[in-house]
């Protein structure tokens, strides 16, 4: 049994209510931080824990905090990025839905560390029911004196608000999120300046993922030294993995970073293998935007070593033979699944979610979607495969925000590892259409 930090009390009945949560050690990190530590000490503790941002990019949270500008007389903000919209990722929703007080506690401790007196949780528009759960928890926290003026008599004030988005994936990009929070169209901003210098309303702002902020709670509770003992040398701590696809037991799991991929997929404690006794065909380990891995690269790296669930092992071999841990959206495909169809599905998502601000992403994503739709419906030709590879190379790195990269990587990886399947779609158009299981009628969104 691996160690649980976030989901330790997940099965306690009523853990979403204040009293039960408090009785199970809730709000201790706030007490510890506000009574015994200075804000700087909290930041240093998080920095020492080597916690990597759990939203996808894996940028060290403590380092992000240390970049925050602290000019006199200007407010600072902490914004929690709860706009979880990546296909295959649903861990943040699980956390907020089941443990709303952990979210609130993480926000209080982190806001104290950053000296923010107003903090926001920017939540995805489709999660309105979670918003209600959070607002209830916040109201309870206000009533018990964990929020508001002079928390625990320490002289520290904090107001916490939940703001819903309008349902756009792009608003999970931190600068687009800030634009949206300010009430504008959610277009990503040009960087620099980074939010740590000029963020919400032009003030220094830190934007962190839900899981990162929740993880601050156990880090403060057990201390960074203890936290560093969990996980591997380069990937400390635990991580929530939202496993889905053709698994016997999909769901949200908290793993100690560094368990082997094989154990995670086939282990009894975890996903218990592929559903219906099928063979595994491919794996996307970190949400739809990371490269797909073919069967022979899932449990072993290209050099024949075992692959582990950690930041460094999953990206072993770069994009040529590796992938990324990303946000932990673990998608498994069995032998019956069509990679071309899946790639088209992702391309369709990104074409639909591109904000339309910069040309390579606006035009390129929908172009890829159209070409993939043609291939999938048996109307493609060999030239199209090379064309796709060419288009995604021209989108990658040339856009304002990482959505362009996120749209390009899955297509590039699918062609890299499953080129024969694309070619089969061209040479066997009729069979390819039959493989669509009657889903062919789904039109190309851009038509």
């Amino acid at each position: 049994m691996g160690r649980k930090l976030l989901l330790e009390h997940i099965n306690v009945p009523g853990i979403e209510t204040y009293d039960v949560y408090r009785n199970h050690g809730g709000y201790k990190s706030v007490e510890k931080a506000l009574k015994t530590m200075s804000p700087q000490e909290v930041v240093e503790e998080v920095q020492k824990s080597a916690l990597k941002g759990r939203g996808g990019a894996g940028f060290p949270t403590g380092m992000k905090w240390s970049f925050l500008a602290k000019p006199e007389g200007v407010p600072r903000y902490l914004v929690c990025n709860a706009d979880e919209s990546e296909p295959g990722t649903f861990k943040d929703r699980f956390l907020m839905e089941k443990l709303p007080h952990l979210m609130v506690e993480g926000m209080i401790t982190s806001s104290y560390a950053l000296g923010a007196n107003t903090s926001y949780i920017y939540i995805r528009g489709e999660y309105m029911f979670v918003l209600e759960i959070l607002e209830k928890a916040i109201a309870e926290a206000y009533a018990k004196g964990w929020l508001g003026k002079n928390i625990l008599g320490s002289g520290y004030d904090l107001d916490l608000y939940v703001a819903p988005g309008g349902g756009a994936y792009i608003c999970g990009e931190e600068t687009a999120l800030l634009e949206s929070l300010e009430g504008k169209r959610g277009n990503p901003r040009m960087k620099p300046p980074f939010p740590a210098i000029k963020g919400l309303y032009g003030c220094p702002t830190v934007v962190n993922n839900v899981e990162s902020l929740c993880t601050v709670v156990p880090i403060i509770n057990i201390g960074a030294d203890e936290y560093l003992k969990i996980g591997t040398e380069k990937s400390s701590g635990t991580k929530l993995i939202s496993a889905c696809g053709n698994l016997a037991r999909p769901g949200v799991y908290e793993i100690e970073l560094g368990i082997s991929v094989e154990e995670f997929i086939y282990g009894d404690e975890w996903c218990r293998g592929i559903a219906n006794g099928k063979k595994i065909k491919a794996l996307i380990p970190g949400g739809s935007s990371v490269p797909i891995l073919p069967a022979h690269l899932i449990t072993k790296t290209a050099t024949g070593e075992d692959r582990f669930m950690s930041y460094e092992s999953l990206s072993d071999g770069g994009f040529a033979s590796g992938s990324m841990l990303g946000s932990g959206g673990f998608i498994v495909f069995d032998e019956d699944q069509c990679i071309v169809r899946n790639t088209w599905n992702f391309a369709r998502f990104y074409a639909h979610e591109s904000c339309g601000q910069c040309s390579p992403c606006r035009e390129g994503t929908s172009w890829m979607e159209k070409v993939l739709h043609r291939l999938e419906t048996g109307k493609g030709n060999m030239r199209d495969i090379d064309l796709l590879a060419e288009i995604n190379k021209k989108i990658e790195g040339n856009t304002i925000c990482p959505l362009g990269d996120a749209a390009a990587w899955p297509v590039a990886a699918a062609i890299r590892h499953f080129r024969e399947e694309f070619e089969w779609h061209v040479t066997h158009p009729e069979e390819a259409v039959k493989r669509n299981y009657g889903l062919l009628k789904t039109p190309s969104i851009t038509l």
Partner: protein
Amino acid sequence: MIKVTIDDIEIEVEEGTTIMNAARMIGGDVVPPAMCYYSSLPGTGGKCRTCLVEIAAGSTKDPRPMPKLMVSCSTTVQDGMIVKNRTSEKVIENRGAVVEFLLINHPLDCPVCDQAGECDLQDLGFSHGKEGSRYEEEKRTFEPIDIGENIKLHMNRCILCYRCVHVANQLTDQRVHGALHRGDHTEISTYIEKAVDNDFSGNMIDVCPVGALTDRSARFKSRVWFLKPMNASCECTKCSGKAVVWMFGKQMYRVTTRQDQYGEVEVKDGKPEWICNECRFDKKDLEQWTIEGPRHISRNSVISQGHYEVSKTNLLK
């Protein structure tokens, strides 16, 4: 003052200058093309990605090259920075790709477009475009909407540079148009087809790099290269009254702002010389203007072909 090298040419500029403006100080081929950046409209830039340049060395302090191509219009120069524009194959290749992206859904209706001859996209397609298109799909189209009696919006031609949105934000009392929808369905539009009618809204036409916004009073009247541009001024209480009038014989076809070689409005004493809608749309009589003399069109365009100065030099030869 800091030193920066662009395409092997060294120049000293003030701190905080963008690569684009440093390149414009050098001038000539070194200047990257710009479709969305407009120096008189703060906040523009970064969107079209045509001005991408390679940064071979970040600065003297940190001489590492930057892994990605950077947009020259919004990246500020550092001391000792080495920038490659036309000398970089990577830049030429990726800029070509951006032009391809801009053109795949563009209707390419230049023969009937009023902007032809002074269109930035035409120039860009000429310099960086390919002969054929690899785009086999049907082009994206929009339902036409009416934005008032003075300005014609042709959304199919739009490349979404957002310049007109900045004009409305910065020059007019209240912006009534903006971007709707997202992805390749993003559309410049007013909220529920309201007319864009404001004293300075006509300047949207001049900042538009393509034929998406054109002057209804001059629409389909004449190709720009048949007209003679003249510097003219008038007494106007709202604007500077300094404009260019486009003549065919004694007939005035249209009035525009005075534009420099980058297609941007001229700036005098730190003030951009925008013109008001009255000067632009209503004063089409020679008597209302004082003609100052022929207008020199410095940009490389077909408009210069029928120009006085060109013909004079040709005569001397």
